[in-house]
């Protein structure tokens, strides 16, 4: 199977020339009790790229994102963010790394005691203490305007729909101008129209901000829309990685079955 570097050369990506990718996962393993979730994963993402990680439910896709953001600790392997290995770093040392990353949780994970505006302001209040309250308010309005939620500043998370919560979650994830964006099932539970709107929003933000993005999804249509490359996981391994055409032309049984059922 082609290595990440071989694929990079074929696709003309920055790491082919020796430029370090923003996120590089090497030989990553994670098991919960006796259940091996990730069995030696190798992936990398560079600036301006979107990698979609696909697979059946329970194949470790979300665990991969949680490992990258440091919410879980890998059993072995490395996770490099701008070349620095963060695998196993203590909570105190993860702070500066995490400020470079934005994370959209599957169910948005908005703080339900705060309004929409306060949710988006939350990271700014903690990490941009030099901002005045008016500057912060203006920044929150800009972020919510980018995701089409500028009129809902004072609403509580319980007052808005699931799709709207995801938009607010996205605005919050972008508050600190991250270089890396991690999205966990951004269209899960949404109707086709809302899913399409979220996909369009992600594409627009990616074009404007040129982040390195990893999207975990089981929605092949969404993955094709927003991602430059797709990686298909099965039983803890990357079965195939490449563009959609590479998957479509693959002879691997699992890949064919996955595409057929999607």
């Amino acid at each position, binding site marked *: 199977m082609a290595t990440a570097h071989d694929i990079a050369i074929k696709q003309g990506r920055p790491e082919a020339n020796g430029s370090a990718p923003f996120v590089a996962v090497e030989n990553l393993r994670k098991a919960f009790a006796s259940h091996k979730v990730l069995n030696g994963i190798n992936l990398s993402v560079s600036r301006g790229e979107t990698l979609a990680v696909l697979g059946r439910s329970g194949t470790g896709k979300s665990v991969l994102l949680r490992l990258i953001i440091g919410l879980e600790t890998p059993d072995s392997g490395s996770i490099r963010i701008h070349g620095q290995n963060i695998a196993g770093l203590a909570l105190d040392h993860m*702070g500066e790394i995490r400020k470079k990353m934005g994370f959209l949780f599957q169910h948005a994970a908005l703080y339900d005691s705060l309004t929409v505006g306060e949710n988006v302001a939350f990271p700014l209040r903690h990490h941009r203490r030099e901002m005045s309250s008016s500057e912060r308010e203006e920044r929150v309005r800009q972020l919510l305007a980018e995701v089409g939620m500028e009129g809902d500043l004072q609403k509580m998370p319980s007052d808005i729909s699931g799709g709207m919560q995801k938009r607010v979650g996205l605005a919050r994830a972008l508050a600190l101008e991250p270089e890396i964006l991690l999205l966990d099932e951004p269209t899960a539970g949404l109707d086709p129209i809302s899913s399409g709107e979220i996909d369009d929003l992600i594409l627009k933000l990616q074009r404007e901000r040129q982040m390195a993005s990893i999207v975990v999804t089981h929605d092949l249509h969404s993955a094709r829309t927003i991602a430059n490359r797709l990686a298909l996981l099965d039983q803890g391994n990357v079965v195939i990685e490449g563009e959609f055409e590479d998957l479509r032309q693959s002879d691997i049984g699992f890949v064919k079955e996955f595409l057929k059922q999607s």
Partner: protein
Amino acid sequence: MAATVINPALPGRQAVPVPSVFDSVGRLTNEFFEWFGNLGIFVWQVLRAAVTPPFEGRELVRQLDEVGSKSFPLVVMAGAAIGVILALEARYSLSRFGAKSMFPATLVYSVLQVMGPIITGLVVSGRVGAGMGAELASMKVTEQIDAIEASAINPYRLLAVTRILACILMLPLLTLAADASALLMGWFAQSLVEPLSFHQFIEKGFKGATFNSFLPQTFKTSVYGLIIGLIACFQGMRTRGGAAGVGRAATNSVVLASLFIILADVVLVKLILVVFP
């Protein structure tokens, strides 16, 4: 070794292992030490977060309001009820021994040294412990705590330290409120039967008293606050299992905090008697 029984309901009358008493005791012992071990790790994380900046002043103020202001009415009502009960019981008991003149001192010492602190601790444990445990558990199961951590904010500092500190600071003040309410209502209940001016009541009740008679007992409630905050935050922040887990966290927070308050009081009372004779 576990015994086995044949379960007639299963196809082929399969043998089902039945845990022996030793298995159950072993499992419970494991769980007991595991719980205290995890609590120890949690305490360490909280201590480290408490002494490292940046400090969450805004959240602390919010929690002082949650724990203090919002518990005030309940604590005052509980204190009032205790004052009336003690007045009725004390009057009856003292009358039997011809010691009715001791009523003011009996009520004052009972409330300030024993009943005020313990009732405040148990009432606040119920209200604040359950609320805090449920709130944090709900945040845990909806990934809000993970979102806080992913935003490069220490969840122990933001959520646990502020709540525990608020409980430590507010319990003595709430105890004073409960004491005042109990003494006032106790005097009032007594006055309905045998008129006694409030001035005389206070003069007789506090005759010969020093600060050492009451202040250590009031400030020991800071330890109750520590117990309530610590147990509620610990139970909440390590919840698993959805709505059922949230319910368990709320219940366990109240039950364990109440239990530990009573056990701690045994030690604290003795300590106070030794240090402040």
